[in-house]
Structures are given as structure tokens and as C-alpha cells.
């Protein structure tokens, strides 16, 4: 169980917090945003950090999940869970069809293609107003209920989102430490060598692209129900960039790096509110300082430093 000790500690903290602070704004309100961001950052990290394939369009899949839920429940009266499933099925199909041509591209070209995808989907949300409500979005989603229990308070949402977030983190940790995860890292390290070891690199990249999109789509559906409202703003190109920043800030290729990155980027604006007009400036400066001094990412750098310190102490005691 040593492999999962970090995860168990993390899960315990997350589950205890709302019990100790049930009415704390940062726990039960900001916490929900943090969880959604963690899920998205962790899923993006599977593609970017593990497989080394950049995506500047991750918010698109998040948005498609959210809009599928909103449209199917409100306009077609579908059961929320069925709507979520239908949205997920749509995103899986779409991302699978797109994955082969898109992931043939590398580096800047891949960045451009995924950027294009994100922008097209966003424009669709804004322009197809008969379906999506245009810039105003759609509000009034039905309440999600689980086993007859309506999820109608912040604390209940906390536990729902927290469970899905923990599941995502667990999946990501499991993948890292498996044949599939090693195949992804191999694609990242050297695509030619990966192929010579018998890895069908096109298939591996396509599968992780779809898996990552699926995770984002379900997060989108949950987000839509929790917010009770969807609008194009939440799924813009800027949000995709923010997700990339979370992954890079925490440490590319590390699951807990993505968690920390998402946490910091979600909590910083809340904390910096005291600086009022200078909020954005200070936010930018903090990001720059971290990237200049800890280019491997906050979490990864700290982990390496602790490991080096412990190794040094062991040497000393010998």
C-alpha cells in the first residue's frame, strides 16, 4: 500500500475538511471549483505530461459535456444521468474521430490544431443560439439526484465532486505505474524507440486523447448541474490555456503536480482579491517567479528537493 500512501493522505484531508469546516466559504464553495479544475488538470496531464502531446483545446471537451447535459435535460427532458452518458458518448466519438489526424501532428502544429478545435467549439457555443442559447447560455438545469438523494446543497456537491476528483487522481496514479502508462512515457521519450518496442504509437496516443476527453466531458456535465447554468465564457480558449498552466506549474508528468497546480491557480485569485486592482499583476508575477526558479514545476521540484535531502541524511548517517 506504500504506492498509494500519498493518495490516502490526500483523500483523508479532502474528506475531513468539510466535516470540520462545514460552513467555510473556501471549503464548500471555492472547493467545488478546485475539484473541477483538479479533474481537468489531471486528465490533461495524462495527455500532456505522460504522453507529451500538448492540447490547447481541453476546455472544448469540458464544454461539450456541460452543454450536452444542459441541452438534453432542459430541451429534451432526458434524465440527467442519461444526458451525462449521452454527452460522454458524443465526446468519446468526436475525440476518437479527431484523434488520428490531429495526433499525427507534433509540437507547434499539434498546439495549433488543438487550439483550432477549442476555438471552433467555443464559437459553436456562442453562435448556435437556438441550441445553446448563444452568449447568454442556458440556465435552470434539473437537480441531480443519486440513489434517490437530491444533490441540492454545497456540502452534498462537495462530496460528489470530491469523489469523482479522487477517482480521477487514482486512475491517473494507476496508469502512471502500469504497462499503459509506460507506453505513454515511451511515446513521450522517443516515438521511434517506442515503435521498435512494439508500441502502436498512433493507437496509444489516440486512446489517451479519448480517455482524457471523456474525463473532461463528465466533469463538464457535473459542473453544469452544480452551477445550474452554462455559458460559453466558462469554456473559452483562455480556460484551456489556464489548464495547461496548471499542469505545467505543478510539474508536467506528475499527477499530484497537476493537483497542486490546479489548487494554486484556483485559490490564488481568491486570496489575491485583497490587492484589488493589482490582483492580476501579482498573479502573473507569482507564475513567472515559480517558472523561472522551479522550471520543473512546483510539486516536482519540491519532491526532488525532499528526496535529495533525505538521501543526503542517509549518506551522513552511514
Amino acid at each position, binding site marked *: 500500500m506504500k504506492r498509494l500512501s500519498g493518495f490516502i493522505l490526500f483523500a483523508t484531508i479532502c474528506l475531513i475538511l468539510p466535516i470540520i469546516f462545514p460552513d467555510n466559504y473556501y471549503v464548500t464553495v471555492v472547493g467545488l471549483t478546485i475539484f473541477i479544475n483538479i479533474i481537468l488538470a489531471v486528465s490533461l496531464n495524462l495527455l500532456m505530461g505522460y504522453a507529451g502531446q500538448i492540447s490547447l483545446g481541453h476546455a472544448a471537451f469540458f464544454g461539450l459535456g456541460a452543454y450536452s447535459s444542459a441541452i438534453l435535460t432542459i430541451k429534451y427532458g432526458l434524465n440527467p444521468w442519461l444526458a451525462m452518458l449521452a454527452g460522454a458518448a458524443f465526446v468519446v466519438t468526436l475525440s476518437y474521430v479527431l484523434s488520428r489526424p490531429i495526433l499525427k501532428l507534433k509540437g507547434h502544429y499539434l498546439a495549433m490544431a488543438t487550439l483550432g478545435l477549442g476555438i471552433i467549439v467555443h464559437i459553436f457555443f456562442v453562435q448556435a443560439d437556438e441550441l445553446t442559447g448563444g452568449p447568454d447560455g442556458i440556465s435552470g438545469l434539473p437537480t441531480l439526484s443519486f440513489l434517490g438523494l437530491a444533490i441540492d446543497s454545497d456540502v452534498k456537491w462537495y462530496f460528489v465532486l470530491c469523489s469523482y476528483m479522487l477517482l480521477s487522481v487514482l486512475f491517473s496514479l494507476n*496508469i502512471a505505474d*502500469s504497462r*499503459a502508462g*509506460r507506453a505513454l512515457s515511451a511515446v513521450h521519450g*522517443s516515438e521511434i524507440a517506442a*515503435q*521498435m*518496442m*512494439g508500441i502502436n504509437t498512433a493507437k496509444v496516443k489516440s486512446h489517451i486523447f479519448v480517455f482524457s476527453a471523456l474525463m473532461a466531458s463528465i466533469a463538464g456535465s457535473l459542473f453544469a448541474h452544480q452551477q445550474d447554468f452554462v455559458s460559453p465564457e466558462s469554456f473559452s480558449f483562455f480556460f484551456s490555456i489556464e489548464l495547461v498552466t496548471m499542469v505545467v506549474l505543478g510539474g508536467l508528468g506528475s499527477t499530484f503536480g497537476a493537483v497542486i497546480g490546479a489548487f494554486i491557480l484556483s485559490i490564488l485569485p481568491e486570496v489575491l482579491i485583497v490587492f484589488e486592482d493589482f490582483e492580476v499583476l501579482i498573479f502573473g508575477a507569482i507564475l513567472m517567479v515559480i517558472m523561472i526558479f522551479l522550471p520543473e514545476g512546483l510539486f516536482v521540484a519540491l519532491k526532488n528537493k525532499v528526496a535529495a535531502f533525505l538521501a543526503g541524511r542517509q549518506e551522513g548517517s552511514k
Partner: protein
Amino acid sequence: MALLEVKNLEKRFGGLKAISDLSFSVPEKMVFSIIGPNGAGKTTLFNLLTNIYTPSSGSIFFKGQEITNLPPFKIARLGISRTFQNLQVFLNMNVIENVMVGCHLRSKSGLIASALRLPSVIAEEKNVKQMAFEALEFCGLSDYADRPAGGLPYGILKKLEVARSLASKPELLLMDEPAAGLNDTETAELCQLIKRICDSGITVLLVEHNMSLVMEISQTVLVLNYGKLLAEGTPEEIQRNPEVIAAYLGEG
């Protein structure tokens, strides 16, 4: 039957014929070396055999099956592996993980099973680690198992590539200049390693510039010059061949 058969292979880059009308066959369980001056087309030949380059014409057969246009990962599945002249180690992983990637073909858990970490995955993981460790031991690298590949010396990385290839249990191993950049001690170790690989029943196809190594371990030597076959024979025959001496050995 020959393990590998190359028939009238040709590769043109624009007007340049990197390989022209090349035919040869490699019998099983031997060390078959390919030598030739720089630019003779040796690495190009390896890239054609593994379909990293697509041949302009001609065909390649492995165990009687045509592999000319198969993608590299399918060629690997049939039992061909290779090392690279310019190292292609996965520097983002540690040593044992590199070799565990080599076990990809000998294991089968998919993405979903891995994410859920099913009991079958846990059992397979243990098994893969064992196989990878055996390959490391075979190459004398077991002390490095948990070291990150990124910081290791060149000689170790070269051996690591060999271990990774061996972990896939190939029948044919292509080695592209394994001795390049190694010192005398490391070269001697490499020589022993290649002999042991061959003794374990794996056919080795070797591209190498180090003549004493080639002459010591090869059963057959093929000389390439300007993409054409200049001579083929035992090391003694090659060393006595006047054309080879003129084109290559004599000039050194």
C-alpha cells in the same frame, strides 16, 4: 531457410541512391556484420529493415514473411528489435522502466484495466518487473535498476538500449554501432555481451566501425560501399579481399 532475406533493395533520396540493388540473406543464430566507410548506407539499411524509411523498391522477408511495408511496431511484433546509433533511451524514465517498456510485447494490460488496476494487472506488473530485471542482469546493469536514465554515462545508456531490446525477446537484434564512443574496457565488455546474446539463440545483425570487434565476433561480414554490396564473406576472406582493402581497410 534464412532468417532475414533482402532482395534487390533500393532507396533513393531525390537523385541520390543511398542503397542500390542490395540483396543478401542472414542465416539464423549468427553474428552478421555490415561494414563500410561513412555514408555507405549502413544506418539507412537498418532504417529500411525496420521501415523507419520506406524502400523505393525491393523487398524484405523475415522468416519467409514479407515485412517490406509493415509499420515498425508490427515488425517488432514479429521478433525484430534494434538499438540506435544516436541513442533513443527514454530519458524521462528510470532504468528498470526503460527495460519494462521492452516487455511491452510480452504483456497485455490495456488502458482501462491499468486505470482500474485489476488483479490481472497487478500480477502482470510483477511478472514484467521480473523479466525486465533478468534482461538488466544479463547486460550487467542490475545495480542501476532504480536510477533515472537521464543522468547516466554514455556507456551505460548504450547497454541499457541493448537490455531494453533483449527484454522483448527478439529473434533478430539489429545493433547500430554499439561500440561507438566506448573505451577499450567497455568495448571488451560489449564483445562478451554480443557473444552471449548470440549464444542465447538470438541472431545479431551488427553495423560497426570497430574492425577488431567485427573480425572477432562475426561469422559473416558484408561490405557496403556507396550503397552497393562490395563483398560478402568470412572475416578472413574480407580481410584478404583486394577490393575491400582498396575501398576501405587499406585507407585507414
